[in-house]
C-alpha cells in the first residue's frame, strides 16, 4: 500500500476542517510527514515527523497567525541545517551522461524553483513541469535525490525544509530509469 493514499486522506481532512483564518490564507501544513513517493515494503512504517510527539493521527494544521511570531522573524531564523553543517550544506550533483560531478550548497536556495533554475543552468538542460501526483512531465530529465534513509526520491515531493535536511545527494536521471519512481504507474 502506498503512502500516497494516506496523503489523500490528509488532503481531504484538510479541506473539510473548520479553519479559524481568513479564506484564501492557508498556512502550509508543516508537520513534516513523509510523502515518500517510492514504493515501500513496510506498510506499517510510521509517519515521519519533525516533532517528537507525533502520533499516527493526522498532524495539527497550523492556525493562521499562531503562535504570534512575525513572518520576518519566522523566515530569518537560522535553520537547523547550519547547526549540523556549520558552513553551508554541500551535496554532490550528478547527471546521467554528464562527465563531471558538481557540488552545490543547498543553503544558497530558499525554494525549489531557485534550485531548479540553478541546476538547469549548471547542466544545460530543462526539467519540465512538476505535478504532485505524476512527477515531472515534458522532459527526459528528472531531478532525484537520495535521502537520509538511502531512498531515491523525486525532488519536490516533500516540503523544502525537509528536503534540505534529508538530501544527501542529487542525481538528474534520464528517461527510462525514472519510471520506477512514479506513483503507482
Amino acid at each position, binding site marked *: 500500500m502506498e503512502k500516497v493514499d494516506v496523503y489523500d486522506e490528509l488532503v481531504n481532512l484538510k479541506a473539510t476542517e473548520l479553519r479559524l483564518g481568513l479564506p484564501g490564507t492557508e498556512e502550509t501544513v508543516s508537520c513534516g510527514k513523509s510523502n515518500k513517493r517510492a514504493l515501500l515494503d513496510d506498510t506499517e512504517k510510521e509517519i515521519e515527523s519533525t516533532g517528537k510527539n507525533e502520533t499516527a493521527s493526522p498532524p495539527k494544521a497550523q492556525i*493562521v*497567525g499562531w503562535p504570534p511570531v*512575525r513572518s*520576518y522573524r519566522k523566515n530569518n531564523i537560522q535553520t537547523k541545517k*547550519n*547547526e549540523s553543517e*556549520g558552513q553551508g550544506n554541500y551535496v554532490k550533483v550528478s547527471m546521467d551522461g554528464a562527465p563531471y560531478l558538481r557540488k552545490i550548497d543547498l543553503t544558497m536556495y530558499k525554494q525549489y524553483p531557485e534550485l531548479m533554475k540553478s541546476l538547469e543552468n549548471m547542466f544545460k538542460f530543462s526539467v519540465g513541469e512538476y505535478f504532485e501526483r505524476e512527477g515531472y512531465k515534458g522532459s527526459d530529465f528528472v531531478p532525484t535525490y537520495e535521502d537520509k534513509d538511502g531512498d531515491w526520491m523525486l525532488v519536490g515531493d516533500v516540503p523544502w525544509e525537509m528536503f534540505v535536511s534529508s538530501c544527501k545527494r542529487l542525481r538528474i536521471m534520464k528517461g527510462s530509469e525514472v519510471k520506477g519512481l512514479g506513483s503507482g504507474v
Partner: protein
Amino acid sequence: MTQDRSEMSEDDDDQQSSPLDLPSTAIASSSTPNKSRNCISSSVTLKSQTFPDHVLENVLENVLQFLDSRCDRNAASLVCKSWWRVEALTRSEVFIGNCYALSPARLTQRFKRVRSLVLKGKPRFADFNLMPPDWGANFAPWVSTMAKAYPWLEKVDLKRMFVTDDDLALLADSFPGFKELILVCCEGFGTSGIAIVTNKCRKLKVLDLIESEVTDDEVDWISCFPEDVTCLESLAFDCVEAPINFKALEGLVARSPFLKKLRLNRFVSLVELHRLLLGAPQLTSLGTGSFSHDEEPRSEQEPDYAAAFRACKSVVCLSGFRELMPEYLPAIFPVCANLTSLNFSYANISPDMFKPIILNCHKLQVFWALDSICDEGLQAVAATCKELRELRIFPFDPREDSEGPVSELGLQAISEGCRKLESILYFCQRMTNAAVIAMSENCPELTVFRLCIMGRHRPDHVTGKPMDEGFGAIVKNCKKLTRLAVSGLLTDQAFRYMGEYGKLVRTLSVAFAGDSDMALRHVLEGCPRLQKLEIRDSPFGDVALRSGMHRYYNMRFVWMSACSLSKGCCKDIARVMPNLVVEVIGSDDDDDNRDYVETLYMYRSLDGPRNDAPKFVTIL
C-alpha cells in the same frame, strides 16, 4: 541606555501613563467629561485686563516651548483657547498613534511648526496575517500634505505604514533639512527609494530600517550617499534582504565621524565586519551582520576577530548574528562586560555555547534570544544579569506542537535572579501558575508581561488547572503593569481579576481565552486606562461589545477577530457613536448579507471614515 532600548524594541509603545493622544484632546472639549482624565472646562478664559493679549501669548510661547512631553502639552492645550493656540504654535513633535484618527489636513491646520512626526498605521495583529494585504495605512497623503505645510520637517518615524518609493522621493525633495528617517515594520518600498533618500538628504543623521520589508531593486543605495563627510549617526539596515557594495560601505563608514550606531545585514560577512570595526572604534551600537563566512574554506591567515572587538571599547549594544557560526562567538568576549543590550534572537545557540558568553555580561539590561538557549541558559542569565530590565525569548520552532526547550523553570529562575525586570515576552510550551505567581511577587517593577504558551488552551502542566491564578497574580501584584498578553487555558475568572486589579493596563492582547461575554465585560468595565484591545478567537459576542460603549471614544482601537459578533450589533454601535469608525474586515468573496463578523477593527476618528478602504473592508 533608554535610547538603545527603544531602538531595539519590537512593539515598544509609549510608556506614558496618561495618554492624551491628539484626537482625544479635540474630542474632549466637545464630549462629556470622563472619569479617566482631568478635564478643565474650556470655558475658562484668562482675564487679560492687566496685559494685552499678544504680550500674554508671547510669554506663554516662551514658556510652553520648554514642554516636551505630549501629555503635558495636551493638558496645557485644554486650559483655554489662548493656551490652545500657543501650544499649537510651539509643538514641534507630533505623535499620532493611529493614522486614521485624523486627516493630514487637520494636522497641518492645527500645528504650524512641526519638525518631527511619529505616525503609526496598521494594527499589530496585521503582523500575523490576520488581515489581507493592502488594507491601507498609506504614507502618501501625509507626505504630500506635509511637503507643502512643513518645509522645515526634520524627522519622520513610521510604524506599520505603507510607504512607496514615490513617497520617499517626495520626502527627499521636499525637506531640505531632513535629518531622521525611521521605518519600523513598514513595507511598500525598495532599495531604489532608499537610494533617493541617501542621495538627496544631505543632512541625514539617522536612517533606521527596522524589521521592514524592503524589495531588492538591485540599486547600490550605499554608493548614493554624497562623497563628502556625512552627518550620519545611525545607520540600520539589518532587515534589507539585498547584497550591498561593501567597498562603498567601508568608504561611507570612513567618512562618517559621528557614526555611533551601525546595524549590518546578513550580506556582510565576518571578514568584512572585521575590517569595518577596525575603522570605526567609536561605535556604541553594532549589528554584526551574518557573523559567518560565505566562502567554503577559510583562508590561511584568519583575521583576529577578538582584537577587532577589543578595539571597540564603546560598544554597549550588540545584535545581528544572522547566520552565526558558533565557533566564532567567543570573539565577542572583549565587549561582553560593557554590554547593556544583547540581541541573539536570530541565532540558534545551544546552552553550552551560550553560557560562557552570558557569564560575562554583568551589566546587561536588555536581552533577546531564541529558546534554543533552554532553561539552562535562562538560569545562567538569572545568575549573572542582575540589572536586567527587558527579556524576550522567541521560539526557534514557532509551531503549536513543537517541543519547547524553555518552560516554567526558566521563568522561575529569571524571576528569582532578575528582580529589576520591567518587561518580559516569553514563548513556551509549558507553564505553571506557580512560576507566574513567583514572577509577580519577585518582580514588582514589571510594566509589560507577555506570556505566550504556544499550544492553545494549555492548562498549568503540573496541576492541570487553568492559568487564571497566574495571570491574576500578575495584575494584582504588579502595580505598575501597563501591558498584558495572556495565553493558555483561561476562564472568565482570569478576566475578573484583570477587571478588578488591572487599573493601569493600557494594552491587552487576548487569544483563545475566556468562556463567555462576562470575561470581556469585566475588562471593559474594570480597566479605565485601557487604550488598545486586541482579541482573537475568543467567545465574546454582542452583549460584551455593547458593554464597552462608554469606553470606545477614549481608546485608540479595538480589534476583535473570530469572535461571536454580529453585523447588526456593530451597525448599532456605529450609529450611536458617530466619531467611531467601525470597520468590518472580511475577504473579497464575502457575502454582504452574512451577519457574522469575521474581523472587527474600530477606532475613534475626528474626520470620519477613510476614503481609501479596499474592497474587503466595510465601514458601517
